[in-house]
């Protein structure tokens, strides 16, 4: 039978580990962004599994280091050498971005944590003679990414449904990605054209990663079929 001392020892082993409290204090400032980087990586994986090599780019040059935005920003912003990825599938070019703002059909701007968009539109927005936010129609897929140590908040789901609604009817994929879950949000996302609930999307659940990646692969294949 386990004793209180066993329990205290187990807690100490967890907290005192190099990936315990000390690690938490280092990473907590970037926990949300680390999750976005993970989802961005899953989009790269989808491109790779379609047989193409995604290419990492930086807004002002080679992305060394590859910088993820700390806050929503404009696609043409040269404040830092922000990273993005590009790939070509069946002759169609796409870009993968993190933390970029889009102009919705209402004219209101919206940040997408991770997105796949048409590369020609992205280049047009970066053109120094026509700097602009990408328009809603340039979006192929957009995902809200939320790292939570507890239950997700319902408001996040409601807000994202509104965001996707303002992105028009060209969006082929959308989803709320989280390592956590909210049972009611799963139901809320059931109606057609609502974002997909990618709950428990974490390396601890490889089958959920596969669902996310396969959805992207399926849509890109359909979109680029001759």
């Amino acid at each position, binding site marked *: 039978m*386990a004793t209180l001392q066993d329990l205290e020892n187990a807690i100490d082993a967890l907290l005192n580990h190099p990936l315990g409290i000390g690690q938490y204090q280092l990473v907590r400032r970037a926990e949300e962004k680390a999750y976005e980087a993970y989802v961005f990586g899953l989009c790269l994986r989808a491109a790779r599994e379609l047989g193409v090599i995604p290419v990492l780019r930086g807004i002002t040059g080679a992305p060394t*280091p590859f910088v993820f935005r700390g806050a929503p920003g404009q696609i043409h912003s040269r404040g830092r050498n922000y990273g993005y990825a590009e790939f070509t599938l069946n002759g169609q070019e796409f870009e993968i971005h993190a933390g970029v703002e889009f102009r919705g059909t209402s004219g209101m701007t919206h940040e997408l944590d991770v997105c796949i968009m048409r590369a020609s539109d992205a*280049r047009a927005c970066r053109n120094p003679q026509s700097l602009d936010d990408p328009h809603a129609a340039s979006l192929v897929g957009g995902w809200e990414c939320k790292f939570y*140590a507890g239950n997700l908040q319902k408001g996040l789901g409601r807000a994202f449904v509104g965001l996707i609604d303002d992105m028009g009817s060209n969006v082929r994929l959308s989803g709320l990605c989280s390592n956590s879950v909210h049972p009611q949000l799963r139901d809320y996302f059931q109606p057609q054209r609502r974002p997909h609930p990618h709950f428990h999307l974490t*390396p601890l659940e490889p089958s959920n990663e596969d669902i996310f990646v396969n959805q992207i692969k399926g849509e890109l294949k359909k979109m680029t079929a001759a």
Partner: protein
Amino acid sequence: MKKLGARDEALAAQVQAAIDAGKDVSETEPAIDRRKKARVYRKTVPFSHEEALQIALDALQAYFVEQPLFVAAAADSLAKAAIGVPTHRRSGYQANSEEPEPVSLEGQGVEKAVEIEMQTETQLSKTGEETIPLKRMAQEQIDDQRHHIADLRKLTNFAQE
């Protein structure tokens, strides 16, 4: 929670918030009239002590296991991509062109340096680091923490005792 709070108040508060969120359950109210169905309604209730322990462990797992795994997975994916190094000085590419910029591909299969921006573009007060590196942790260390969490789950699973 006391032990955790003594080490890091913010983390203890996060874990406490996850516990205090409670859970939804379906309550059934028997019908008074036999011709009517029993009424089922949603009710938010606190977690039991055993459930609360598991919720606390889920929260700690999110920070001590999942966070390092996110970084490792992102690092793996970025490593498998190539870096596009612009070659326009050689090709005469115009910056205002909407054609794809010519690049040479380098570094495929090589670990990439990844950073997260801390000082954002619109931030007026520039304090602290501009960016922080997203560093991969050793897989053995992540596995250690997974085992520690599993041990704690066993120790706090009173149903088996």
